[in-house]
């Protein structure tokens, strides 16, 4: 992965160069000399342009930093949509502030020159959204010193919507890298025997099902309150398949109370298939999957009631959970069940971890499905995830060394490059 | 023998614990104990000071955006801060962007104004619920009445004595946002920063640490956090109320949890090593 780094940086630099070239003011900011009683004070380099990388409706004003920018001086920016007059005060700030380097854009998309003032003006604050995007606006900057105001020349611009958020390039590059790795891994998925380390807690599943069989009590499998597009629910459905296969083999009972009707239909298929694969289609019953409620706490209340009445031997909590996690787990613990939980909601993990016998933490839940089923496609996806984590570990490790060194020796541009690379815009 | 008894205690019926907790939480409601609460956190102090220093007659805009779920923590804060505003003879305007909070706002203003002889329309005004908070906040910057032309009772807002001289944020002394949602972030980002209006916040204890950066940079002038913050604010204005009794309950309940954890570990030690 370290080898890739210079390559990435090179791509960024290319873009930066291309952008610096294209970001030239060009014809956008036409200067006009105003003819009036008061000769305007010329601000060198005053240009108005369209703010890049946005949906339109925001203008950008730039002019050079001047030696006159003393602390007691301030600038006022005026905007107008009319040919003459109609000035609205849009902004006011001390002269020693608002340089280009204060605009929060990465180095490959923005030239942060400290010798230049740059002011972003969101025109829809002053005009309607339609007008802000469509008309030509005129701007002037007034320098205020000792209660005296000097107008600048007037510049104008029409804003436009842009087609690419160059500032999100780092995100896009990362996305492409992951897609490539993803397809590499998927196309090699048929290769057997991809290694996955043992996941503690999964052995407990067998133990729990065995115990339930011995005691002749049911098993509850709670898939949580996620919908089918949450990853934990998808993982949970895979685990449910494996669990119900074992349940069918042992001829034990399983119950699955549902929050989401779509998840329920999926789980019905999964359980049916599992019973079929285990060679026990006759034991499959429609009421294994049961719809409870689509209201968070009434779901919890009802499942609590079920658990405390039926006293299951084992309870699985796998999927997406919110505040009801502890409501469910504590009742399960009281009724004496072995509890195995797994969720990727990090705020709820502490409660499962303390109240249940075994807990699959975050990603372990995703891995569990792969580990149990040994399905090549799942395993290869897990490899992509490991690759991603490797990228993070390596980036953090080298990032921290480089940034610390850079800061120590005051290589500010270098530090900025690294920080920009790892920032989402 | 001792071990056996302790072993029993180890597996104590949870319902005794439940009962203990219920008692511990309920008693202070009936009879506030007034456990010492000497420390007043810096952020609450700042919030109090800021409001305290406003000249009489300044207009304070309260954005009360909490629903029944966060009521126990935030309602006492709202009551205490509104009280303080009335004590200092400030003008109070109330807006909300959470539909569930209208009833709670009603509860605040059923009792508090009467204690300070404040009149609806002259000293305070309540505006109706509005959806789409950010759009409304931005709009208010240019013309307050463009959004709120009538108050909750349908009176023309422009003619109310309490609104005299108020046109937009520039005429307001302070904005106070009490919320369990991210509404406070909106006030800071879209109003406080942009239009240079001071903003105070009141939030639930859980989200309190997240506002550290805003406080550091002064984007928030002060912050009241959780029941503790409410109790502190009450003691600053010299009016102990639900916050104080709440913090009594919480004090005892937390102590109970700690005692339980320690006992269970102590028993574990004894059973293991004696």
């Amino acid at each position: 992965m370290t080898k890739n780094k210079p390559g990435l940086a090179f791509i960024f630099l290319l873009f930066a160069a291309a952008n610096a070239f294209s970001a030239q003011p060009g014809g956008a900011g036409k200067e006009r000399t105003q003819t009036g009683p008061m000769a305007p004070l010329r601000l060198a380099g005053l240009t108005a342009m369209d703010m890049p990388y946005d949906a339109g409706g925001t203008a950008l004003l730039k002019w050079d930093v001047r030696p006159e920018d003393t602390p007691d001086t301030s600038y006022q920016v005026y905007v107008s949509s009319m040919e003459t007059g109609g000035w609205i005060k849009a902004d006011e700030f001390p002269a020693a502030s608002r340089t280009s380097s204060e605009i929060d854009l990465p180095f490959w998309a923005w030239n942060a020159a400290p010798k230049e003032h740059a002011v972003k003006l969101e025109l829809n604050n002053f005009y309607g959204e339609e007008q802000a995007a469509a008309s030509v606006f005129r701007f002037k900057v007034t320098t205020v010193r000792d209660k005296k105001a000097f107008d600048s020349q007037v510049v104008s611009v029409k804003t436009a919507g842009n087609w690419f958020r160059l500032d999100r390039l780092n995100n896009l590059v990362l996305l492409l890298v992951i897609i490539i790795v993803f397809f590499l891994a998927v196309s090699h998925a048929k290769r057997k025997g991809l290694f996955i380390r043992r996941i503690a807690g999964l052995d407990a599943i067998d133990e729990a099902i065995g115990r339930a069989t011995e005691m002749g009590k049911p098993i509850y499998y709670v898939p949580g309150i996620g919908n089918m597009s949450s990853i934990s629910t998808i993982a949970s459905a895979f685990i449910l398949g494996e669990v119900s296969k074992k349940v069918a083999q042992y001829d034990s009972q399983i119950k699955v109370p549902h929050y989401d009707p779509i998840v329920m239909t999926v789980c019905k298929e999964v359980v049916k298939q599992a019973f079929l694969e285990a060679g026990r289609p006759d034991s499959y019953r429609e009421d294994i999957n049961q719809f409870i409620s689509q209201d968070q706490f009434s779901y919890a209340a009802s499942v609590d009631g079920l658990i405390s009445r039926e006293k299951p031997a084992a309870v699985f909590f796998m999927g997406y959970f919110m505040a009801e996690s502890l409501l469910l787990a504590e009742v399960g613990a009281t009724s004496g069940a072995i509890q195995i939980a797994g969720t990727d909601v990090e705020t709820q993990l502490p409660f499962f971890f303390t109240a249940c016998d075994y807990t699959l933490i975050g990603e372990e839940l995703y891995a569990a499905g792969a580990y149990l089923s040994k399905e090549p496609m799942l395993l290869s996806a897990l490899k992509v995830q490991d690759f991603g984590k490797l990228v993070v570990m390596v980036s953090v490790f080298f990032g921290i060394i480089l940034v610390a060194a850079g800061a120590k020796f005051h290589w500010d541009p270098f530090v900025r490059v690294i920080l920009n690379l790892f920032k989402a815009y | 023998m001792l071990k056996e008894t302790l072993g029993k205690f180890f597996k104590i019926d949870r319902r005794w614990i439940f009962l203990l907790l219920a008692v511990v939480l309920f008693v202070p409601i009936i009879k506030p104990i007034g456990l010492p609460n000497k420390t007043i956190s810096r952020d609450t102090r700042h919030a109090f000071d800021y409001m305290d220093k406003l000249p009489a007659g300044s207009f304070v805009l309260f954005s009360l955006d909490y629903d029944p779920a966060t009521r126990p923590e935030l309602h006492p804060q709202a009551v205490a801060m509104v009280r303080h505003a009335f004590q200092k003879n400030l003008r109070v305007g109330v807006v909300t962007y959470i539909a569930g909070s209208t009833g709670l706002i009603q509860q605040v203003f059923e009792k508090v104004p009467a204690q300070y002889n404040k009149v609806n329309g002259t000293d305070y005004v309540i505006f109706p619920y509005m959806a789409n908070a950010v759009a409304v906040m931005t709009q208010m910057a240019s013309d307050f009445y463009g959004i709120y032309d009538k108050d909750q009772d349908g009176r023309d807002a422009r003619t109310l004595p309490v609104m005299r001289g108020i046109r937009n944020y520039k005429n307001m002394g302070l904005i106070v946002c009490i919320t369990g949602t991210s509404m406070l972030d909106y006030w800071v980002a879209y109003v406080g920063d942009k239009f240079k209006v001071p903003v105070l916040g009141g939030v639930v204890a859980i989200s309190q640490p997240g506002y550290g950066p805003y406080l550091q940079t002064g984007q928030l002038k002060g912050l009241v956090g959780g029941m503790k913050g409410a109790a502190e604010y009450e003691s600053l204005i010299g009016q102990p109320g639900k916050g104080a009794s709440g913090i009594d309950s919480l004090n005892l309940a937390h102590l109970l949890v700690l005692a339980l954890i320690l006992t269970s570990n102590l028993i574990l030690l004894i059973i293991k090593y004696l």
Partner: protein
Amino acid sequence: MSETWMIAGAWVAAGLTICLFSFLYKDNPFFKIAEHLYLGAGMGWWFQVYLYNIWKPKVWEPLMAHDWMVLVPAVLGLSLVTQFVPKISWISRYGFTFLMGYGAGLAVPAGLSTDFINQIGGTIRPLSMMASMTSWAVFNSLLVAFGVICVLFYFFFSVEHKGHFKKVSNIGIYFLMIYFGAAFGNTVMARFSLLYGRFDDLYAFAASKYLYATQFILAGMIIYFAVHGFLNRGKKEAEAAQ
């Protein structure tokens, strides 16, 4: 809302609250009633929310205004209902696939920026102030970075955790433990506040204004449990005597 309704409300609310709390003692018919009421009320609440916030303003009204675009999601949505007819249940795939595709498309870039790039950035950024940091702050920043790497390694599935690897992933577990403990402790107060809020309501309903709703219901509940317990004991003794 008249006075009578207020009092009725207090009785209903206090009753339902105490019925649900009674589950803490043990399962009982009152809890079952409250539980089932809650099932219905929960679904009823969401039904009217969808009705008045989505179906009416976002489907019905646009249709009446001849905005035919909303037919697309409405048909996709209706397709879901074919789930109940096994023969044509494949039609529901059109609705599902739309939901899944849109959800997945949203999740990818958002996950990349907030949970991936920003988290790496957040870990290394503090050290860019190296020159002005105290050694304690430097230590903290390094500790966070070290912890993140160890925890990530704990979730690394491609190598067996043995030897040195085992040590690293073990350190990761310690960081997880601190997080779990701290998060648990941090939530305690919020939960207590909620319970305090419920008790505060019950206390309010105990006032004479509400005709002592809380006291009467609580007393009724206690009497029920006492009588029930007494009768059951009688039964048990009778069984034992046989």
